[in-house]
């Protein structure tokens, strides 16, 4: 009874890029900036592929919501081992104001449409750090959720997931269909090797729009401004522990 997995991949600004805020404070500079698959989503794709290699999964569908460039990210997912891809096309202003709730609705709609048994997502995207999509998808579908997974075992339509929590880790068992979000230590993603990049060319990529899925992506929040964090102020030097304590007392910190 091999399961079918939907993996969400987001095209985010590459982790190594020095992000710059636009001068008009309406967002960050994305034009001409290197983008790549969100690292936590890479871990999700890797986990899905491993499940397929273990013959627990029979099909992996990759989905991404955004402009045409998302197809590159989906191609990467196909090159890593996904079987097919779905691109939910959202352009221009709609994309700039796209929020996690809208994305969750889209992913939930695709999950229902494709009748998948498992939705695998990264725990958060490194551009907005929202950490909401996985939770909201589960809520919208009324499916159980296992978040911040650092170990996943699937057997007999049940997933045993070790999660990273504040105090350490906990293991929970959820019935499929479910939503699992990946954390850093779940696995080490592979590189797409050249033969699989070649094979990915032939894998199908479907395109759809939010209206095809019956989803309204109207934003519910308005971003007022984007600003850089305050520049780091230099510290002061102290010559003894006593001086340190008195300085801390001065600032009202002890």
């Amino acid at each position, binding site marked *: 009874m091999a399961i079918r997995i939907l993996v969400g991949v987001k095209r985010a600004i*590459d*982790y*190594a*890029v*020095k992000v710059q805020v636009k001068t008009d404070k309406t967002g960050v500079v994305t*034009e*001409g*900036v*290197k983008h*790549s698959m969100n*690292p*936590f989503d890479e871990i999700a794709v890797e986990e899905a592929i491993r499940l397929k290699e273990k013959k627990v999964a029979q099909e992996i569908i990759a989905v991404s919501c955004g*402009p*045409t*460039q998302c197809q*590159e990210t989906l*191609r*990467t997912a196909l*090159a890593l081992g996904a079987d097919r891809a779905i691109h939910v096309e959202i352009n221009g202003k709609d994309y700039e104001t796209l929020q996690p709730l809208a994305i969750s609705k889209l992913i939930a709609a695709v999950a229902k449409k494709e009748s998948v048994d498992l939705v695998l997502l990264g725990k958060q995207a*490194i551009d907005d750090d929202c950490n909401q999509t996985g939770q909201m998808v589960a809520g919208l579908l009324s499916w159980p959720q296992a978040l911040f997974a650092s170990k996943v075992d699937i057997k007999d339509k049940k997933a045993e997931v070790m999660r990273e929590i504040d105090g350490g880790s906990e293991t929970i068992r959820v019935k499929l269909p479910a939503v699992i979000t990946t954390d*850093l230590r779940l696995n*080490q*993603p*592979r*590189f*797409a*090797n*050249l*033969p*699989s*990049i*070649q094979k990915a*060319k032939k894998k199908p990529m479907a395109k759809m729009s939010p209206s095809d899925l019956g989803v309204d992506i109207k934003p519910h929040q308005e971003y007022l401004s984007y600003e850089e964090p305050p520049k780091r102020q230099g510290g002061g030097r102290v010559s003894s522990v006593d001086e340190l304590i008195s300085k801390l007392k001065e600032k009202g910190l002890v």
Partner: protein
Amino acid sequence: MINLRRFISTAQLLRTTKFNPWVPHKCNMSSTVVNQSLYNFSEEEKLIKETVARFGKEHVEPHVRQMEEAGGYKPELIQAIFDQGLMSVDVPLEYGGSGQTFFSSILVIEEMSRIDASVGLLLDLQNTLLNRLILSCGTEEQKHDYLPRMAKNLVASFCLSEPTSGSDAFALKTTAKKQGDYYVLNGTKMWISNAEISGVYLVMANTNPQAKHKGISTFIVDRETEGLRIGKRENKLGLKASSTCMVHFDDCKVPAKNLLGKEGEGYKYAISMLNEGRIGIGAQMVGICQGAFDKTIPYTKERKQFGQRIFDFQGMQHQIASLATEIEAARLLTYNAARLRDAKLPFVKQAAMAKLYSSELAGKVTSKCIDFMGGLGFSCEYPQEKFFRDCKVGTIYEGTSNMQLNTIAKFIDSEY
């Protein structure tokens, strides 16, 4: 199995080192106008370039110095490179290759050379020289015998030069006497790259010394063949992780079926292979230039002297801008030669120009990068001195600069 660890910690997100995107800075690559520049990569080529750049940074870079000191590549790294499909980039899928364009192999060599020119050399030789030789001249049986293995785990070496024949390659003295079902090879080859780790050697030998260069033939010689002996390795200035040895043939009996192509046509094959190999070396040299540059410019933006960043001195800016322009020119020469070759258009002159220009430039760029780094450039703790040493052989191997100039002049002669 190599430890494929990747650091995606939060600290990584705060990294300040810039990973240069392949796209020229501030260029709007989402325009819908047809891109006819030499940066018009197909989706696969883009993905390959990025994957290799990342692979190089995460799996090769940590081991570069260690491999140089050990005088050899890490075996797990070589296998990982094979597994990535990087040793058979443009070999067709039916022979176990990765089925990409020749241009993709150039991108692979360039990206890898930005990290380590020795690994770049391994990729260059296997892709542009050795696979190519078998693909162009081999029988279907030979192709099916060797190419899949060369894609999976078999490193090969190209044996042309000898102690008494370098630029005058076809004055080679190694003989191959036909004896029944065998050819018996006698002679010595010199400067054979990766000889220590290769499993098969493509050897140029003369089956008819009286016909001079028209007797040169090519043979596929397996390592285990009796009479083949790998000599001592050379102690070199650079590219130390790549073993360079003499290879001796003492009554080495090679089965007649291992003749590659026709007797007496070896010199033709060698010439045409080396034309493509030249583009590969061009890519390697461009990679070295870019790699050295990438490690140096951030330093110039941090280092302060006389109250300002050294990058802000106009003298520095002029030198840096000048070098960047030349690196761009070298890259475009190389890319163009590769695209011409893929389009099956004449490319020999352009290939020679690419190799000539890139290799001469690499010497200049790496030397200047050491200057920009000041005292640190002279220290082995920093990568510039390795790039400086590694690139020196660029003007020498696969046809010296003088030979390239001769080639280019011949074309010019025939054009006017």
